[in-house]
Every structure is written in structure tokens, then in C-alpha cells.
């Protein structure tokens, strides 16, 4: 399988703290890759560098279905246009918008009506709008929110907010989906439903790269797991092997004695 | 006058106005720091301070106090009195206008503040009349020539009073328990409430201190310029807001620096460029500065509004 995302020698510092230290990894097309590591290992920083939220100090991110293009220096919305969308660790929905509108925002890059055709009646714009609405409703169906499409996003229960965020990220039809701790804060039943959803997406051929703390979530669905600790990649491989890796065990046991290493 | 003397004189001129700006800007910035509110009514509190001080000065010159009290004693009493009055008013405004809507969208508080500004300004007009009031000045007209630069006792009083207050505030904020609670509240109001810090009281205290500083600014303003008017607070409030942003809003040393810098900019702008363009000049500098330092001279955090 060809690589879809290549991260090469990525380094990012915050003042004196090195959040990412020379990290190299890749995600192949159709794969589900888990990114694990103790708190403060640099997982979210890696996501932020990939999606353009943060500029890496060094190294390169490349992405593409055929020829690889460098993403370094691109703005987040350009990267979304390339086909990478994401969710956030602490859910960032547009809480003042309805559930449906949240998903519709994601279709922005797949629609093209300009200022004039948005202001005046135009058949083209109407057709496009109908397509976007259908797509959004389809995705809400997929995540089980079709019945609540007109509720305020901010008023949804937390578990549903997580699912809505996934639907929103999917609405631009991305090639690569980044999930930042999608199971955090969910109860057992919700976690189970989430696993099913990710499996389902995988079945449709979507490439997923996810950060997850809960081994019971990450192990069954990941084809491959990458482990970060102190900003460095310390292990990589199939879930089973990584779980037995002594460095990984040490990193995780070590964290139980330190309180928090978040920069 | 040599060009250098002229320049030094203009520096001294700018610093005087800047010190008053700084006093008002401090309150702006402290209130912004704890509840992220651009308190448009702050300029009006400054005017309330000025009018209360005027009333007290008039009372003390005509009233029951024995004559022969040194001028600084009179001013101290008047200053403290007006600070107390404005502080209480500030706390009352916070309690009855801002607290009930603290959890509403932030723009609401902004509009409330604007409404409060209209209200206070017109209340002052109705209470004290619309005409400019003469502000008697008990400070002797002493002046010194230092290397060709004239400095008046009045200017020294402005510098000393504002300097003392600023140092006092810095000590209060940095090394007392109350100051620590204020800083903590500015960092994260919710967390402070969870930790059992009496957030309401801290916010009220901030309003008291901020308004008292504005009142002191008002008295010095009245003394220095000799006339006050009910609508003076509008322009001064606007300038102080600019100063607070210039220094980095929410940042206490920033407000002092911002006030002084704005005073200097205006002074030098009027002195060397053109007085009719001086506000343009000051605003242009502000805009350019924000482009390069988007959080002001000393600012660290930036808040998103609306």
C-alpha cells in the first residue's frame, strides 16, 4: 500500500520544551493507525503540525494520494482542502449553530457558490445547496443524529457531540481523518458505538489516524500503533507487539509517578 | 530655547498628561483583566471623581475646616474622599448592572457599559449643570527651571501622586493575598470559583480600586487643567482605553506604560507635527504597533470576543 501521509523528522519546541523531537512516521492508504503515549508526549502537537494549526520548527509533512505534496507552511484551510480533516480533544463544535449547520460548514470546500450567487436566486447555487443538505443528512444518519438535526449543537449530550464532530469532519469527504481522543469522556456503551462507527468508516476505505488513551479502544481497531514519549517516537508496529515492548511499558509505568508533563 | 531643551520640555509635557491617562487606564485594564469587559463607563467614573473632588475642594475652602491647613493636606483629604466615593459607585455599578449579566454574552456587558456611560454622563449634567466648572487649585504656582526646562509644582504633584498609586497597586497585586486572588481570577474565573475564592468579592474589589484610581485621575485632571465639564470623561475614557490597549489590555504595568507612551505620543505629535492630526498620529502608531505586537507593548493574552 502506498503512503498517504508522511511525517519526516518533525520537530516542534515550546520555549525550552521539545514537544516533538525528530518524529518520522507514515500512514498508508486505507490504514487505521493509532497514536498513543503518556500525557504530554506530543500527540496533539503532532496533529496540530499536520493540520497546520502549528508550524513545525523543523521537518516536513507530505500528503497525497498519488504524488506527495508538502503541507509545511500551508494554512489549516488549505490542508483541509487537500483532504485532511480532524476532530479535537476537547470537542470544538460551533455550539451556536444547529447540528445540521455544523455538518454543512464542512461542505464549504466541496461547494462553490460565490458572493453574488449566494445573494441572488440562482439555480446552480440551489442545486449545490440541496446536494450539501443531502450529504449532511446522510452523515447525520450515519452517526445516528438525523433525528436531532435542528437542535443546537451546544445543547447535545457530550457523547453525541463527539459523534457530531466526526460527522462534521467527514462532510468534506476527506482522504484522511484525524481523531484526537475520540473516546475520551464516553461511557462504555458510547465507546462501543464509536468503535463500530470507526470500523464502518474503515469498511468504506477511509484512512484514519487516531490518538487514544484507552487501550481497549485503540488496540482492536488499529492496524498499526505508533508510540510517542517525551516527543520522541519510541515504538511502532502491530498492536500486539507494541503492547509487549518494554520501552512502552516503562513509559506508561513511569507516568504513574509523575503528575503531568504537559508543556 | 535649543531644540534639545524644547524636546525635553515636550517630554515633560507629555508625561504629565500620560500620568493621568495611566491612572485611568489602570482601572480599565484591571476590570478587563478580571471580567474581559471594556468598561465604557470608566471615563464617567473618572468624571464623578473629578466632580466629587471639586465639591470637596469647594467645601474645604468655604467650609468649617480651620484655615492654615497646608495645601497638600487639603488635597489628600479631597483625593481620598473622591476615591472613596467613586470606588463605592464603581462597586454599586458592578453589583447592579454588570453582575446580573456576567454570564450573558460578552457584548451585552459592553452595551450595558455604554448605556451606563450615557446614564452617568447625563446624571452629572443634571446634578452639576452643563457649563464648564472652574476647579480651584490650592497648589502654589511654584515653578523651577532645570536646564532650560520648566517644571511646575503641579506637574510634580501629578507625577508623584500617580507614581505612588502605581507603585502601591503593583505591590498590592504582586505581594498580597488579595492581589494573588485578583491575578488568579484574571487567569481563570471559573477555576477560582471552584477553588473557593470569593470571586464576586474579588471582582467588586477590582471595581473599587479601578474606580478609585480613575477618581484620583479625575482630581489631578481638574487641578491641572482648572476646568471640568460633564462630558470630559468621554474623550479621556477613550484615550485611556487606547492607552490600556497600547500597553496590552489586562496587563497592569502595560497600562502604566501605555498611558505614558500615549501621553508622550500626543505631546510630541502636537509639538512637532500638527495638533489637528495628533489623534490620527496617536491612533496610527497604535495600529502599526498592534500589527507588529498584536497584544500590545507588554500584553500576553488575547481574548476573542463576539
Amino acid at each position: 500500500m502506498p503512503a498517504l501521509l508522511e511525517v519526516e523528522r518533525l520537530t516542534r519546541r515550546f520555549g525550552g520544551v521539545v514537544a516533538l523531537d525528530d518524529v518520522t512516521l507514515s500512514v498508508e492508504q486505507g490504514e487505521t493507525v493509532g497514536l498513543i503515549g503518556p500525557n504530554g508526549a506530543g500527540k496533539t502537537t503532532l496533529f496540530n503540525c499536520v493540520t497546520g494549526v502549528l508550524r513545525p520548527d523543523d521537518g516536513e509533512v507530505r500528503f497525497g494520494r498519488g504524488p506527495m505534496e508538502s503541507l509545511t507552511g500551508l494554512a489549516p484551510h488549505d490542508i483541509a482542502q487537500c483532504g485532511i480533516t480532524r476532530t479535537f480533544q476537547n470537542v470544538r463544535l460551533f455550539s451556536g449553530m444547529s447540528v445540521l449547520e455544523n455538518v454543512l460548514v464542512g461542505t464549504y470546500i466541496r461547494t462553490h457558490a460565490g458572493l453574488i450567487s449566494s445573494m441572488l436566486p440562482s439555480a446552480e447555487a440551489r442545486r449545490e445547496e440541496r446536494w450539501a443538505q443531502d450529504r449532511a443528512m446522510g452523515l447525520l444518519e450515519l452517526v445516528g443524529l438525523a433525528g436531532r438535526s435542528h437542535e443546537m449543537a451546544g445543547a447535545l449530550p457530550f457523547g453525541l457531540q463527539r459523534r457530531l464532530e466526526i460527522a462534521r469532519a467527514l462532510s468534506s469527504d476527506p482522504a484522511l481523518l484525524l481523531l484526537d481522543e475520540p473516546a475520551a469522556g464516553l461511557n462504555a456503551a458510547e465507546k462501543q458505538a464509536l468503535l463500530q462507527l470507526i470500523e464502518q468508516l474503515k469498511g468504506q476505505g477511509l484512512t484514519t489516524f487516531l490518538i487514544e488513551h484507552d487501550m481497549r479502544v485503540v488496540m482492536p481497531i488499529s492496524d498499526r500503533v505508533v508510540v510517542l514519549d517525551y516527543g520522541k517516537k519510541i515504538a511502532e508496529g502491530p498492536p500486539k507487539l507494541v503492547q509487549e515492548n518494554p520501552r512502552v511499558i516503562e513509559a506508561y509505568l513511569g507516568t504513574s509517578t509523575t503528575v503531568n508533563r504537559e508543556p | 530655547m535649543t531644540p534639545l531643551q524644547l524636546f525635553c520640555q515636550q517630554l515633560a509635557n507629555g508625561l504629565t498628561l500620560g500620568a493621568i491617562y495611566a491612572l485611568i487606564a489602570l482601572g480599565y485594564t484591571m476590570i478587563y483583566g478580571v471580567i474581559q469587559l471594556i468598561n465604557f463607563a470608566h471615563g464617567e467614573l473618572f468624571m464623578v471623581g473629578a466632580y466629587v473632588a471639586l465639591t470637596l475642594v469647594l467645601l474645604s475652602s468655604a467650609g468649617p475646616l480651620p484655615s492654615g491647613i497646608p495645601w497638600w493636606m487639603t488635597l489628600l483629604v479631597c483625593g481620598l474622599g473622591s476615591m472613596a466615593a467613586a470606588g463605592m459607585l464603581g462597586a454599586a455599578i458592578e453589583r447592579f448592572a454588570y453582575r446580573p449579566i456576567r454570564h450573558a454574552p460578552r457584548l451585552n456587558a459592553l452595551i450595558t457599559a455604554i448605556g451606563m456611560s450615557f446614564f452617568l454622563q447625563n446624571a452629572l449634567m443634571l446634578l452639576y449643570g452643563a457649563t464648564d466648572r472652574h476647579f480651584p487649585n490650592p497648589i502654589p504656582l511654584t515653578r523651577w527651571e532645570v536646564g532650560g526646562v520648566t517644571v511646575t509644582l503641579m506637574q510634580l504633584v501629578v507625577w508623584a501622586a500617580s507614581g505612588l498609586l502605581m507603585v502601591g497597586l503593583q505591590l498590592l497585586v504582586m505581594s498580597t493575598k488579595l492581589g494573588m486572588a485578583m491575578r488568579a481570577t484574571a487567569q481563570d474565573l471559573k477555576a477560582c470559583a471552584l477553588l473557593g475564592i470569593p470571586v464576586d468579592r474579588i471582582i467588586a474589589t477590582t471595581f473599587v480600586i479601578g474606580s478609585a484610581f480613575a477618581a484620583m485621575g479625575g482630581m489631578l485632571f481638574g487641578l491641572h487643567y482648572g476646568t471640568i465639564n460633564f462630558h470630559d470623561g468621554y474623550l479621556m475614557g477613550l484615550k485611556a482605553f487606547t492607552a490600556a490597549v497600547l500597553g496590552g489590555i489586562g496587563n497592569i504595568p502595560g497600562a502604566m506604560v501605555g498611558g505614558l507612551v500615549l501621553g508622550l505620543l500626543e505631546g510630541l505629535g502636537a509639538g512637532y507635527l500638527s495638533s489637528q492630526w495628533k489623534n490620527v498620529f496617536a491612533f496610527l502608531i497604535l495600529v502599526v504597533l498592534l500589527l507588529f505586537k498584536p497584544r500590545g507593548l507588554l500584553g500576553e493574552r488575547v481574548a476573542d470576543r463576539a
Partner: protein
Amino acid sequence: MEGFRNQTVRWAIGVIAALALPILNPNPYHLDVLTNALLYALLALGLNLIVGLAGLLHLGYAAFFAIGAYTYGLLNLHWHWPFWIGMIPAAIVAGLSGVCLGVPALRVRGDYLAIVTLGFGEIVRIAFTNLEQWTGGPNGLLGIAHPKIWIPGRGLIDFGVASMPYYYLVCITTAAVAVVCVRLSRSRIGRAWVAIREDELAASCMGVPVLQLKLLAQGCGGAIAGLAGAIFASKQGTVTPDSFDFILSVMVLAMVVLGGLGSIRGAILGALLLGSLPELLRWFEQYRMLLFGLTMIVMMRLRPQGLFGRSSQGLAPDRAHAGSA
């Protein structure tokens, strides 16, 4: 669908009532107050795009109004452009100045943007006062032509200083702009604006080009104000810099907030209320601005989300403390 029809009916009733009003009550003073309030509504609609939808706190909106008024005024005085043509460049110039202001200003965020826009408003006003050879200085532009309209059988009619024609002009313009704003707010662009207001980072990660859309919002808002400015200039016949002070920017902002951020009928209603309130309070003479301030405070307390606002957590005060991930 039911709700939609209901709303259409309500809008239709509103429009018919507005059109019939001058016939029922031809008092020129009442019409003039209403015309001014509707002009405010036009401004509020424009500012609503910037503040209400895109979430950019703008405190210098009067500058765009001024630019529109002066553009039409100068075109009319120097090159005799009639109102109906002159209002187009007025809107375009004001819109472009919105974009030009945005290019540097939008690099600063949040409350800092507020002060930059405030500075912009003051700079424009002072510049119009000082650039005497072009703008007439404090005297402003005098003798700007009123609109003329050709009515079959009655020939060319000058609007003059009558009240009714301006009422209809402003009424129709406001209605047209309101319709455009409604369409815009329900389009992909409007949704992207709201997304930026709610969470800029999330919006940009969903592919919304934030800067470009903010500039667009400034441009559209500026153009609407420019249009309003041209109407204002043609109605007054004179344009002086003191019509465009900071208080005007603040008042329009208050109207948008009172109506409910992002709500179009809210912006109109807020403007009608706040725009005519000072006239309604005339009876109280010197106390009226005091009462006006008090009313603003009370209204904010009674309806924190505005008359037609959706309550939204995205605007909650603790937002400032949420750091980015």
C-alpha cells in the same frame, strides 16, 4: 414548511404595513424619524454581517457610512453624478475601504480588533475634517443634489426636502438589503461566517478560509454602510464630519446586539427601537439621554440574548479562557 409560510406571511404584513404607513400618517416629522430609524436599520444590517455573523467586533462602522456619503457627495458636486448612479460607487468605495482596512486590521484579534477599528473610525472622521481642500473641512459638502425620479405624466420630480419619498427609498432599500442578507446568511458563506464566529480554529480546520471570509464580511458590511451613506447625503443635502462620530458606531452596535447577534429581523427591530427611542423620549427633555442609557441597561438585563437571538454558548464570557489545543 409551515413555519416558512408563517414567516412569509409575517414579512408580507410587515412590508404592506410599512408601505401603507405614510398614507395613514403623513406627518413629515414622524416619517422623518422613521426614515432615520430605517437608515439605522440599514446600517445595523451591514454591521450585523460583520459583528453578528462573522463575529468581528467593529467600533468604527460610522467610517464606512461617512465614506459612502462623501463619495456620493463629491461625485455629485464635481461631476454631477445623479444619485441613482452615484450610490453605486459609494457602496463600492466603502466596501473596498472595508477590505483595505481588513488586510492589516484582521491580523489582530479579539478586543484588539475593536480598538483598531475604533482608531480607523476616528482617523477617517478627523481626515475628513482636516482635508479641507477636498472635503470642505468642518463645513463639509454643501448643496448635494437630492434624488430625482421620473414619473409618467408628472415628469421629473425632485425629492427635495419632502419626507415621503425618502421614506419609501429607505424602506425599499432596507427591505432589499434585508432579503439579500437573509439569503446570504443561509448560504455557505453565511454559515462559514457563523462558524468563524463560533470557533475560528475549528472553522479553518474544516476548510473555511478564515481571513478571506473576514475580508468579505468587512467588504459587504462596508458596502451596505456606503449605500446608506449615499442615501443619507442625498437626503440631507449636506455632509459634515460631525455626523459620523464614535457615538454613531456605538449606537449601531447597540442596535445589533439588542436585536440579537446574527438575527436579521433583530437588527431591523433593534434599529427601529433604539433609533426612534430618543425621539419618543423628547417629552422628558433634558432627562431623555439619561433615560436612554437606562433603557439600554434594562434591555440588556431583560433580554441578554437580544430580541431575536439564539442563546449560544459560543459567546459565553468564559470563552476567553479556553486555550487552543
